[in-house]
């Protein structure tokens, strides 16, 4: 049971809030947590490949910290001088690393977004706001592979008479490709009237038309929404209490970590790990039931 089996609005709410949080929280505990959580979740979704690929973010962070500290010289702790005799400061290095971590965790969260929020869900979400636009988007999305398939078909036929896009010398190749594009465009434009007529026959622009979707909001979704809302509430509270902030310029100043701040850490942890935990739980449950049967 992946997180994508839940309602699209929940997916959307979750990812927007988690990305906004990873961008806006400066506190090292939150930073490390969002990095680790996004790393784990994308590794879970994509398997070994993503686990290794995400390792590339580590040199990126180091490089970014180095790069940043070379061009920014705020801070009070001097480490050394670079070739233009500007001071490299600890604060600048750390802040560069912070930005690197933020960028990489947002990238990893976005990887997860691609896996979870498919185009179907995007259309469903936008369809509420603007039904015509979402219809338009779904037509276009279907049209793209159709155009490409049609171009391939034409190319196959043209190859039969020696005029394929890849045949002949360079000039011929270009000429053939242009002809291929021209034919595809004409064919697609001519065929669009068919789709328009069939749209009309199925009641486009009539009143009371509904859009089909396979999503429904059930009790499981309600429970998740309540948990998510509680976590967001708690984290927002922490944000208002300055628990997520830290000053890097000119000195590193942060609030003391008190038992109360652990509450916010835990709620952020639960919030970030929720999809991963749900998936692991679902897999375990399925495996158990399979054993029973």
């Amino acid at each position, binding site marked *: 049971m992946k997180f994508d089996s839940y309602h699209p609005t929940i997916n959307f709410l979750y990812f927007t809030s988690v990305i906004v949080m990873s961008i806006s929280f400066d506190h090292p505990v939150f930073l490390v947590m969002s990095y680790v959580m996004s790393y784990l979740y994308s590794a879970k979704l994509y398997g070994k490949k993503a686990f290794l690929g995400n390792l590339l973010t580590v040199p990126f962070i180091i490089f970014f910290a180095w790069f940043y500290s070379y061009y920014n010289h705020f801070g009070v702790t001097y480490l050394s001088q670079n070739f233009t005799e500007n001071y490299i400061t600890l604060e600048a290095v750390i802040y560069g690393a912070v930005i690197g971590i933020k960028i990489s965790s947002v990238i990893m969260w976005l990887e997860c977004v691609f896996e979870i929020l498919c185009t179907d869900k995007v259309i469903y979400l936008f369809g509420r706001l603007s039904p015509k636009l979402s219809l*338009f988007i779904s037509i276009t999305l279907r049209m793209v592979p159709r155009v490409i398939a049609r171009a391939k078909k034409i190319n196959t036929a043209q190859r039969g008479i020696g005029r394929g896009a890849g045949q002949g010398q360079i000039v011929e190749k270009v000429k053939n490709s242009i002809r291929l594009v021209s034919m595809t465009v004409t064919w697609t434009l001519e065929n669009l009237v068919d789709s328009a007529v069939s749209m009309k026959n199925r009641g486009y622009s009539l009143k009371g038309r509904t859009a089909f979707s396979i999503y429904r909001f059930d009790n499981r979704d309600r429970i998740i929404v309540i948990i998510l809302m509680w976590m967001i509430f708690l984290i927002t509270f922490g944000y208002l209490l300055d628990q997520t902030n830290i000053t890097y310029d000119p000195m590193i100043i942060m609030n003391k970590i008190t038992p109360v701040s652990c509450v916010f850490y835990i709620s952020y942890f639960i919030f970030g790990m929720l999809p991963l935990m749900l998936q692991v739980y679902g897999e375990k449950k399925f495996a158990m039931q399979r054993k029973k049967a």
Partner: protein
Amino acid sequence: MQSSNKDNSKKTKLSAFMIMLLIPAMILITYKMGIRQYYLTSLMVIIMTMVPFFMSFEQRKPQAREVVIIAVLTAMAVASRAAFSMLPHFKPLIAIVIISGIALGGEAGFLVGSLSGFLSNFIFGQGPWTPFQMFAYGIAGFLAGVIFAKKDFVTRSRNKKDLLKLSFFGYLMIQLFVGPLLDICGILTLASVINLETIGAMFISGLPVNFIHGLATFIFLYVLARPLLEKIDRVKTKYGILK
């Protein structure tokens, strides 16, 4: 078509006006409150600017044929970006967007541009740049429509001089508008300190990219504009679309 929906167009104009007031208000609020979230603020501004365009499409009650022809052009723009994916920044997407803006008018041009930016990013990866891309591409189509649409460009595109003018317009569009806007997006997302130095560095590093992109647009407009415009015009006359 618009005259039959006078109330709706009034509504759209009103909402556009409201948004015009909202944007500076929001910038002022974020400035006064000392919220230094440049990216989020500009993102909101861009989304607010795009809203009236989409709303007018929603309220105009477009015909099925109109929807489909815009969808076809968007699909072609997306497919063209996918087809040239191996050449970095050498993309015909903007050329097709500009051509559709000319053929179908400014509003349709905006739709084709912004949605081809949005949809092609499903193939190339969505990110913080998506809204900026949507806005930049959309405005390219919109301006092309506003500047060229009323001059009966189908017949004029047979004239070499006008065609060159159009292609040069495409190049300028990239070099002066689309490219810098995407550079600004880069500044807002990548540079943590925003000052003249980082802005200058970003614009300079963006120059070659914009040049290649603009050159591609120039070439593709020169090659594609006449045949594509003729084809679209033929379909328009044949089936009575957008008349």
